[in-house]
């Protein structure tokens, strides 16, 4: 179900304290079937790794979405910076792709 609740006149805006507290956060990865990678699907809160796995099972695989689960403490993940995107990932280098090379038609598929 849903959703958006219109602003009430005089509604106080939520202050973002960004406080930690409560159960730690875990990132959840699901392997959809054998032969595929585990893929990130979201997160759960749990007191320890066993309950994190159990919660991940209940929240993200209620309809046979997977055959295997990973949970990783969110705090353990290091990420690249969005502002590095161009320097890190935006290098065309067309010669790294097969379509850069012209093969005579007579040769056919290569």
């Amino acid at each position, binding site marked *: *179900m*849903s*959703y*958006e*609740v*219109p*602003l*009430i006149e005089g509604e*106080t*805006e*939520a202050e*973002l*304290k*960004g*406080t*930690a*507290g*409560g*159960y730690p*956060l875990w990132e959840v990865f699901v392997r959809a079937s054998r032969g595929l990678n585990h893929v990130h*699907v*979201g*997160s*759960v*809160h749990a*007191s*320890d790794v066993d*309950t994190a796995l159990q919660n991940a099972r*209940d*929240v993200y695989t*209620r*309809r046979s979405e997977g055959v295997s689960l990973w949970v990783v403490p969110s705090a353990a993940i290091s*990420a690249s*910076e*969005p*502002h590095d995107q161009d320097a890190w990932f935006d290098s065309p280098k067309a010669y790294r792709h097969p379509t850069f090379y012209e093969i005579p038609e007579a040769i056919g598929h290569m």
Partner: protein
Amino acid sequence: MANELSHEERFEAILAADQKIEPRDWMPEAYRKTMIRQISQHAHSEVIGQQPEGNWITRAPTLRRKAILMAKVQDEAGHGLYLYSAAETLGIARDELNELLHSGRQKYSSIFNYPTLSWADMGAIGWLVDGAAITNQVMLTRTSYGPYSRAMIRVCKEESFHQRQGYEIMIALANGTPAQHEMAQDALNRFWWPSISMFGPPDDQSPNTEQSMAWKIKLETNDALRQRFIDMTVPQAEFLGLTIPDPDLKWNEETKHYDFGDIDWDDFWQVVKGNGPCNRERMAHKQKAWDDGAWVREAAMAHASKQHDRTLAATA
């Protein structure tokens, strides 16, 4: 300043290219706040939305219906958790979100402040309330914030079962005994207006819509979504042989849409402001569940900490 500008330009460029904003991207503070408000209210709605239906689990007419209803209520809990998970990527903690709901500083959808008086309400909620939710959520699968969009894709996959099981209940009752037919009609009477109010105030009274659409959070207006839902639902009511409680409802050959009567927005605002039939009951139940669970949360954390210490001691 130049740096700030380039952030802004980058953000606008991502939106212009119909790409998603992701958690670690720079975003205007107002965008972040709007997203937090919308996603967390959506999450609260899923969680509170368990109550009206949970009310009927023990009284479902057959084991089949009971299993279905339990699965549906469980899904609503799951949807709440997908959404909280998405909200947290914006830098707000789960406990804070709970606190905002419990203290009344954040709301949930007003539709859950109406009581579920008969079994037919389980049909009407699935058919109408979930139907309206799907109309909105299908749009939101394309929303500009990546984690929200992904949560919506997951939710929409599951939501279609919710609507179909509700309509199936309505078919059974509408074709049942005269008393059952009457029950179905009564549920439609009570849930019709609140359901079409779910899309929010009309466009000319919805000041945030313009900004939300500029940020591609919303891709269609409240009125457009409402009209689509009504156009889809009227033939479904006709098939059931039930009457939508709106004397002004009629097909408009010119616009190729249904015209409909005026929504009572005063009533809508009363419910939003906390004066609906069930506002207090819903919040009291939520608060009690949270308080009653406090010792479990404390014990779980104490156990985790003890296990952690033992592991350290064993490896020392």
